[in-house]
Structures are given as C-alpha cells and as structure tokens.
C-alpha cells in the first residue's frame, strides 16, 4: 500500500532511510520546520535551513521516487527568543513561493510560555496574510493538555482562520476530541518511547472515527522510527480493518488536507506508474 507521511524530519535522516521508506510504499512526505537539536545563533542560519527544506531535501527524496513537501516557521522552542523569531519570520514570505511549500509550520508551544504564545500568534497572522495552511506542534508529556487548550484558545480568537486548513499535531487520548470537534484536522505521532504507540493510535481511530485524522512518524534527530506509519498499517490489518479504512488514514486524509494548499501538485502513484528505488 502506498502512504503519505505528513510529518517527518528528513534533514535528520540518512539517505538509507529514504530508500527504506520508498521500499515500504512512502509516496510523499511533508517536513515541517523544527528544532535542530540545538539553538541556532542567527536568522541567517534559518535561511540556510529553509534552503535545505525547499531545495536540497526535495532532490534527495526524488531520487527514491518520493515527493517532498515542507512547512516553514521558527519552531516553538527557539520562539522563546522573540527578537530572533521576528527576524526569521521576515525571511518566510520569499520562501513561500518555492514549489514544495505547503504552509506555515510546525508552529506551536513547547513550555507554554508567554513568548511562545506571542510568536505563535504572529505566525498565525502571517499565515492569514499569505493565505497559508497551518501545521501545529503541541507540547509533550505534562505540558500537552494545557498547551493544546491554549493553542485552541488562540486559534479561536482569529476570525480569519479556516479551520479545515489547520492541522493540530501530536494529539493523544486526552486532546484528540477537542481538536476534531472544533473543526480542525488532527495528527497522531507514533513514537517508540514517549508518545503514542501504533496500538494506541488505532484505539484512537476506533473511538474517534477516521475523519480528519492523520498519522505520522515525526522521524527526527531523537529516538524515533521513520517507518512507524507501516507499523500502524500492520496493526490495523492485524485487527481486521479494511484496506479502504487503512488507506483513508494513511493516504487519502493527508492527500485531502494537503490538497487545500495551492502548491500541492502531486499525482498519486498507481501500480502501473510505480517508481522503484534507484539507489
């Protein structure tokens, strides 16, 4: 089965990972701008990062028949530095023209601070001004519930937002319903250690329903598994779910969400056009 990984940080992954993902059926992916594992010293460092996301990674992915899309922002962790954040946000409009950019993301909260909230709001305003879709990071562990509620409060305060063009990511059992019920898309991140397992993600699909729900691996520089989406496919099969339902979650849903972005130009592969890895 072909699938789309809507949230994976390929700048932290090896070329071997691209090959494995392609062999497992990954047809497209989107990579939100995120923390690099260290705080960057200047806005110019982000310019290089945005170049990597909009030029280098799409070429690397294309070698394995995978289409690479991206989202731009300064992440919630580095957003604590308001001055740097505003310099980085000034760089974003010129990169929005790049053909693989789907919108603004992953913005959000990390420790639920005032500075993070200010920069979140300014990103939302930037997205509205440029009619961009939004991808949102919610905090982890004890901060998740509070941070998700704060994010929903802030989004509700913006009249200009089209909720169907916003995805709130890293939802778990205690946050998924508020996000879906408010009309946003929700993403579940499958992480081997601290976050949602494939089994729990399938539990959530079974209890909330498959509409506006996506799954992703978040594969990044920390302990993570870039092939986590195929793990979820296997878990759904073992429980007897139909191929149609599985495909809705791992392909049709991210496809429909991305399709609202004017830069999303993607031809779904069919068996006749299947591209096999070259490396």
């Amino acid at each position, binding site marked *: 089965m072909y699938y789309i990984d809507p949230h994976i940080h390929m700048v932290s992954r090896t070329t071997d990972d691209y090959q494995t993902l392609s062999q497992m059926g990954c047809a497209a992916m989107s990579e939100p701008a995120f923390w690099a594992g260290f705080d960057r010293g200047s806005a110019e460092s982000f310019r290089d990062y945005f170049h990597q996301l909009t030029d280098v990674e799409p070429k690397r992915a294309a070698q394995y028949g995978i289409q690479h899309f991206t989202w731009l922002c300064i992440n919630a962790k580095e957003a604590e530095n308001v001055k740097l954040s505003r310099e980085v946000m000034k760089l974003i409009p010129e990169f929005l023209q790049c053909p693989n950019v789907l919108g603004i993301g992953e913005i959000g909260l990390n420790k639920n601070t005032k500075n993070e909230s200010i920069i979140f*709001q300014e990103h939302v305003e930037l997205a509205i001004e440029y009619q961009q879709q939004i991808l949102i990071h919610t905090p982890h562990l004890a*901060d998740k519930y509070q941070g998700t*509620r*704060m994010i929903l409060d802030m989004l509700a305060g913006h009249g200009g937002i089209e909720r169907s063009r916003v995805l709130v990511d890293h939802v778990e*059992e205690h946050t998924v319903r508020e996000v879906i019920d408010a009309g946003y898309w929700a993403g579940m991140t499958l992480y081997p250690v601290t976050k949602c397992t494939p089994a729990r993600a399938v539990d959530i699909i079974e209890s909330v329903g498959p509409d506006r729900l996506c799954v992703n691996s978040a594969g990044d520089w920390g302990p993570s598994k870039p092939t986590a989406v195929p793990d979820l496919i296997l878990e759904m099969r073992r429980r007897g779910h139909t191929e149609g339902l599985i495909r809705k979650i791992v392909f049709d849903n991210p496809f429909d969400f991305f399709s609202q972005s004017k830069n999303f130009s993607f031809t779904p592969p069919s068996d006749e056009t299947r591209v096999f890895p070259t490396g």
Partner: protein
Amino acid sequence: MNASQVLEREFLEIRARILEIAASLDRIDRAAGDVSLDANRQLLSRGIDLLSAKESDRAEQVQLLFSNEYVSDWQSDFQMKPRS
C-alpha cells in the same frame, strides 16, 4: 475482533507489563531512602488505581492525571492583547 479474541491476543503482553510495573515498584522500595511522600510516587499510585476503574476511558484518565492543569483565563495572566 471480539473481546475474547482481543484478550487472547493481548494477555501475555499485559501480563508482562504488569510484571514490569511490579518489579519497578519493588526496585524503588529496595533502594535506600523513602519516597512514599514524593509527589511523583503518589501520582504513580493514583495512576495504578485508575486501571481498575470500570469506565472504558482509562487511557484518557491516566493522561489527564499526568497533565498540568489548564486555566481558562491564562491570556489575562500573560497580559496578552486579544487578536482579531
């Protein structure tokens, strides 16, 4: 899958996880010092209690137990101006 199929599939895994928790708590007890009043140790006890609840939203309840509190007027605490 019906309930007995799920139970059969998951029985050994659940058994192993209960054993892991039991052994971890034993390990804490064996170690020097007393953490019975430690807030995190008490949170764990409350989490374990939630598992024997009758409701079928145990995972959500455990998540909420380990979550920081949400205060609805946080924006006025931060003195943030309303946006439009």
